[in-house]
């Protein structure tokens, strides 16, 4: 959908000189000494699939806004390419002529701003219709599409008022509607929810998830807020000093921070909604799991911390049964357990089964209901591993799975 290749942005009088020094491996400070230039973005490359939600995080001044503005060329990149998939093939935004650039901004790249950027002298409806008006869409069509989009963001009926009459959260809905109304496939969002109260912010995030499910736009979203990033992002890029220091799925960023900077960043993250059961579970081969005996076509295993619970696993990976206290326990999918009334004391005759892609939060719930190891299985019901308190506590404290011990940096 969109591919950014080796993007650089240098602010200052001698950008070419600065790029040359950068290529020689000189530091930002040395370059500022030598040329007076500030490096805003340094060698950033990434590629997004259609419908991907890409979050960029980083400290203040790390170059997030500059990078985002290079994509629609509100700031002209010093070097590099921004390749956009359009109906007539791939177009480089960085090289487009003035009218082509305008067309790309009108039809392919919409933007949402931290401070909303609404036109105060126009009604909400005319603000939402602005992008269409610039494209010279007729009045009736404009109004129709603006009202439709307002309905979509929950502001049906507010079209006739001026933005100043709305609360901050509502104004940003207008900003969002304006970006959605043009039908642009790529949305650029620069800290769109930072100016909002925590409660409104949460609502807007949920709204965003809902809209994204419905519309499937390709989104580049900047935020300061790690929990927001973890909640929204399919992938997260962490930016430091104009560079991407790590790009990956939310869980990977939290569980395997590649540098101390990233580790600091994720140190205070709430891991329970991010880390997956598959990462937390100990596999049958792990030293913490003992093989008690073999039977024809199956093994009987036990987790060290609950050595009295026998788990029988077929050689093809299916769980055949769990025995505790000399009796067989029932295997129950977690969602069934959660739908029932909670027991007064934890089950010893029922074992929870959880899919590997469920989160740590689900494991906590499962463990709260059953005093037997939680069985984590893949899509084909084959055993991935077991989870006891030990793994859960480890995951919460260390923000890592059992097998993360060897790599990654401790926060």
């Amino acid at each position, binding site marked *: 959908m969109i591919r950014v290749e080796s993007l650089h942005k240098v602010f200052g009088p001698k950008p070419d000189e600065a790029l040359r020094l950068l290529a020689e491996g000189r530091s930002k400070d040395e370059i500022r000494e030598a040329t007076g230039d500030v490096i805003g973005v340094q060698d950033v490359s990434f590629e997004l699939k259609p419908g991907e939600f890409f979050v960029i995080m980083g400290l203040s001044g790390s170059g997030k806004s500059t990078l985002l503005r290079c994509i629609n060329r509100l700031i002209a990149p010093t070097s590099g390419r921004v390749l956009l998939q359009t109906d007539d093939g791939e177009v480089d935004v960085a090289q487009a002529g003035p009218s082509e650039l305008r*067309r790309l*901004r009108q039809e392919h790249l919409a*933007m949402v*701003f931290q401070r909303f950027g*609404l036109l105060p002298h126009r009604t909400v409806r005319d603000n939402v219709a*602005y*992008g269409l008006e610039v494209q010279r869409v007729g009045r009736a069509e404009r109004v129709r599409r603006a009202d439709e989009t307002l309905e979509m963001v929950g502001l049906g009926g507010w079209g006739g008022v001026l933005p100043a009459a709305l609360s901050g959260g509502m104004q940003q809905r207008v900003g969002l509607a*304006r970006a959605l109304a043009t039908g642009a496939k790529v949305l650029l969002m620069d800290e769109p929810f930072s100016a909002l109260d925590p409660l409104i912010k949460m609502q807007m995030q949920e709204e965003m998830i809902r809209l994204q499910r419905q519309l499937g736009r390709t989104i580049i979203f900047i935020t300061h807020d790690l929990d927001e990033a973890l909640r929204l992002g399919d992938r997260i890029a962490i930016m430091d000093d104009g560079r991407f220091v790590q790009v990956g799925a939310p869980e990977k960023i939290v569980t395997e921070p590649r540098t101390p900077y990233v580790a600091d960043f994720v140190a205070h993250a709430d891991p329970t909604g991010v880390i997956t059961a598959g990462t937390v579970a100990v596999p049958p081969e792990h030293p913490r799991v003992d093989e008690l005996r073999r039977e024809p076509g199956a093994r009987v295993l036990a987790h060290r911390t609950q050595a009295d619970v026998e788990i029988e696993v077929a050689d093809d990976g299916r769980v055949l049964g769990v025995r505790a206290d000399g009796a067989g326990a029932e295997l129950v999918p977690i969602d069934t357990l959660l739908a029932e009334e909670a027991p007064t004391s934890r089950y010893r005759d029922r074992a929870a089964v959880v899919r590997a892609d469920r989160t740590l939060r689900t494991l906590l719930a499962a463990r709260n209901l059953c005093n037997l190891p939680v069985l984590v299985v893949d899509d084909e019901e084959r055993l991935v591993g077991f989870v006891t308190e030990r793994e859960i506590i480890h995951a919460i404290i260390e923000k890592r799975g059992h097998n993360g011990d060897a790599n990654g940096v401790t926060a």
Partner: protein
Amino acid sequence: MNALLTDAVFDPIRIPLDRWFNDFINWLTFNYRPTFQAMKVPVEALLDGVSAVLLWLPPVVFIALVAIMAWRVAGWRIGVLAGASFTLIGMVGLWGLTMVTLSMVAASVLVCLIIGLPLGILAARSDRFQAALRPVLDVMQTTPAFVYLVPVVMLFSIGTVAGVIATIIFALPPLIRLTDLGIRQVPDDVIEAAEAFGSSERQVLFKVRLPLALPTIMAGVNQTIMLALSMVVIAALIGAGGLGRPVVEGLNALRIGQAGIGGLAIVLLAIVLDRLTQAFGAGAKRG
């Protein structure tokens, strides 16, 4: 006597600037008088057009129109004030002269808008143009109105049109300055948003900058109108018609009453125009 004696101290280094100035104006007049006379043509046409309409309108209709317009934009008090002012002007026998003055003000303000808005827009766009324009505007604003009259008479001869041209020069600067200021004050984030949606420079100007600058521009229009009115009496010194004439003639002949009612009509006109343009400006602010 004393003053002249001290002047003699400078005799050795005395420069004949007065003669140079004289020569310059003569040279301009000799070589370019047709050009300057040609510049009068559009101003004269505009002036004639406006005054023809104003003098053709029956006073009752005019008063009703002004009162209704004032009521719509500025509320019923100003509506009553406007209607009463113009009725009073008619009752003291100055209707015709007031219409002439009003058309002079209207013509000069129109020309100021035609020249001033584009210059203000250019100044807002380019720091260099703004820097070049600033000293010119400073000179235009600090030069006393009487001083304009000399070159204006030389180049445009005397009469109402020459008076209008002097008025234009005098009243133009605040409109340019406030247009420039208003456009520069438009917040960057709104401009950025408009650009992000693919607006052309024209679209940014007409859909964002000018609408958001409108309250400030209206303040400039208000000042320009007030300055134009303040030139009415001075313009009469070089033969312009309108309300300045009874004032100047009355003063010369010591007919205080005649000068007094002329002055009163000017003040009433100023109050009504001021309230009206301020109300327009406030309306623009509310959107």
